[in-house]
Structures are given as structure tokens and as C-alpha cells.
């Protein structure tokens, strides 16, 4: 899904509008960094203690003391600031993060998110995910539409331990952009080359389709 992934990341990057403070979660979300429009006036936050993330750097150019929360080497911009973990999460909990983009194991039609624990299989810990999901002003998910076995990640209800209840506003996948609305999942856009039927089939809960034409990305 390499070029589909690039289109997904570029589409998700357009969610960032001028003036925002944005936190990118570990995994697909941090890859959005490379797709953010160059001139935009926005601030990327990483919970290990930095606001104003600049471009990622290869190891040969890296500063050993400057990583993002996923361990990737990043750089500063004019106006960047470093701070400790307490201050970093004060920003999160007090509502100074306008948007966070997170990965997901499951998203439910009511906006519940599960992304930190698969009991008996994978329990790495929640890191900063619970606070970001619960406290950022807007939470969107970036994920594949289905898991590796082809099962839907968008479900009528989560089966895994929750990260936060009712937190997800929008989901960006390799197949579609889907909003979580009052009626549940609502199709917003289709990935280029994907049919409505194909997406509905890969979604584990009813997918409401607007009666106007669907844009593609």
C-alpha cells in the first residue's frame, strides 16, 4: 500500500490547519510529519518534551539528545522549546493540544478507541496514549482499515481494553476517511480506486453514506 499510504498520510496532514498545536502518536501518525505543508504556521508537540518539531534526521545528522516519543531523531525550528514530562502532559490535560493523531487496534461506532493492549498477546503499556485520547481537543485515528488478517478495525463496539471512551472524531485509513457522528460511522471520502461497496464490506458496523457525491483522496 506504499502509494496508498502516502496519499493517506498526505490527506491526514491536511487536517492540520494554521495555528494548531498537534501531537502525532507513535506509528503511522508520526509519518505524517513528512507530509505537513512546508509553509504552514503550526506547532507539533511530542510528549517526551518538545514543541515545534522540525524535520526528521537520519542517524548521521542526528543529535543524540533529540528524539520524538517514538525514538526517531528529529530537529528544531526557530522558536522550538524543550520542557520536562510534567509540563508536556500539563499541555495535554489542560487542553492546549488542538489535535492528536493516534494509531488504533479498534475504533467503535460511538468513538471508543482501543490501541494499547491485547490481553494475553501484547501489553507494552499505554505510554501517553490514554491522556492524549481523553484530553486532546480533537482526536483522529490513522490506521489501516483492516488488520493483517483482513478483519475490520472499525467495529460496532470495541472488544479490547479501552484507551478512552467516545474520543475519536475522524478516522483516516488506506480505504476511506470516516467520521464518527451521531449515527455512527459516516463516510466522508474514498481512497482513489476504492469502491463504496468494498469499504462498507471492510467496515464492521453500518457505514452511513451521504446523499451527495463522495470525494476521493
Amino acid at each position, binding site marked *: 500500500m506504499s502509494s496508498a499510504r502516502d496519499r493517506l498520510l498526505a490527506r491526514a496532514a491536511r487536517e492540520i490547519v494554521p495555528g494548531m498545536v498537534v501531537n502525532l502518536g507513535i506509528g503511522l501518525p508520526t509519518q505524517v510529519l513528512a507530509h505537513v505543508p512546508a509553509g504552514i504556521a503550526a506547532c507539533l508537540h511530542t510528549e517526551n518534551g518538545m514543541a515545534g518539531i522540525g524535520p526528521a534526521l537520519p542517524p548521521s545528522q542526528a543529535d543524540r539528545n533529540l528524539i520524538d516519543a517514538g525514538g526517531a531523531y528529529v530537529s528544531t525550528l526557530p522558536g522550538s*522549546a*524543550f520542557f520536562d514530562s510534567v509540563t508536556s502532559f500539563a499541555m495535554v490535560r489542560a487542553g492546549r493540544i488542538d489535535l492528536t493523531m493516534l494509531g488504533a487496534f479498534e475504533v467503535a461506532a460511538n468513538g471508543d478507541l482501543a490501541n494499547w493492549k491485547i490481553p494475553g498477546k501484547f501489553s507494552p503499556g499505554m505510554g501517553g496514549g490514554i491522556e492524549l485520547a481523553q484530553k486532546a481537543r480533537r482526536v483522529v485515528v490513522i490506521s489501516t482499515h483492516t488488520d493483517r488478517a483482513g478483519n475490520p478495525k472499525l467495529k460496532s463496539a470495541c472488544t479490547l481494553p479501552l484507551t478512552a471512551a467516545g474520543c475519536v472524531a475522524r478516522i483516516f485509513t488506506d480505504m476511506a476517511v470516516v467520521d464518527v457522528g451521531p449515527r455512527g460511522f459516516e463516510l466522508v471520502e474514498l481512497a482513489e480506486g476504492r469502491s463504496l461497496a468494498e469499504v462498507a464490506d471492510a467496515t464492521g458496523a453500518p457505514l452511513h453514506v451521504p446523499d451527495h457525491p463522495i470525494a476521493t483522496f
Partner: protein
Amino acid sequence: MKLPDKTTPMAQAIATIKDGDTVMIGGFGVPGTPMTLIHALVAHGARGLTVIKNDANEPGMGVDHLLQSGQVRRLITTHLGLNANAMALMNAGQIEVEFNAQGILAERIRAGGAGIGAVLSDVGIGTELEHGKQVVQLDGRPHLVQTALRADVALLHADCADGFGNLTYRATARNFNPVMAMAAQRVVVETETLVALGQIAPDAVHTPGVFVDCVVPLETLTKEYAVVER
């Protein structure tokens, strides 16, 4: 990507303040008190304010102007000892005063700024500070529930700011400014110096710009900022 610019004209920066608002004001004595923003708030005229400030400055200085103008209904503070005017207003019932232990006032503001509901502290157990406070037992010992404080607006004073609102403070002018910068819906900072983005080293920032909404460069420093001759 570049960081957004938040420099704002003085009048516009405080225009959102409404009657009845809660206003946090930085400073401990003269250092760190936003003398110019206080005068602007007097000129703006909003009334019925709740002011949260460590102290009441001295007569004719700083927040005393706002007390004398009758705009303050309630003052949440720690010490008025240097302002006989403020004590007279309190004794006459013209302003309501809530005293907090100084570090507890700081913690309550910090709790608001950190998205925490309250802190549990044994400070003041066995004193008047217990009055009216919820008590929770921790390991069998009583603790007071010290609830978070937030404000509609914080008025702060910085030594140096960039356009994104990264701030540095000088010496003991830091005091309550960093914590109030975390705890208000709208954070307005007057700054002695405005520098270009990148001129404050990322490791040297005291208050990250993420917390700040409006940066107001000061044109002059009035006599109120000067050394007090006693």
C-alpha cells in the same frame, strides 16, 4: 512549518475580558507584576472581577489601581500586609478576600494548569485553613482537598518573549508567572523585549509558547517597575 505569531496590540489582547471574569495576575511584589496590563484593565473597565494574585502590591502600585477603581469583587491571595488600602477595603467588606497558604495557592493554580482536579495536602491541618474544605484520608491521615483554580484570563510579565510566546523571566520576577501561564483560557503577556523566533534557545525557555495566546511588547517601562525607595 513555522510557528504561529501571537503578537497582539494591548487593547485587543484584553478586549475579551468581561464583567465577572476571573483574572490571574503574576508577580510577587514589584518583580513580575504586569503593571502596564493592569492599567489597561483599569481603562477597559470590566467590573465584578475575581482576581487571583499572590499579594496586593503596595498603595498606588500594581493591582492596587484595580482595587481602588472598584472593579474587584473578590481577591484570592496569600498576603496583603504591604497594602493598607487593600486591608481597609477588606475590613470594610468592599472586597471579599480568600487567603490561601502561598504554596497551596501555587499548587491550586498549577492543578488548573495541569488539568488536575485537585491536590490532597496536609498543609493547614489543625488551622483555620481547614474551614469549608473537603477532607480525604490517605493512609489514615487527613488531607484537605485543594481544588484546582483556573481563570478566564491571565495577565503576565516577561523579560523576553518571541512571537510564538516562548517566555523568559528575570530573577525573582518569575514567581507566579509560569504557573498562571498554564491555568487560563487566554494568556496575555506583556514583555520588556520581543525577539525573533529562534533567539531564545530551546533549552532556555521558561514558559513554552504553547501556553501563551497574546504577546504584547511594552513600549516603555513606567516608574512602577523601578526599584522601590523605602
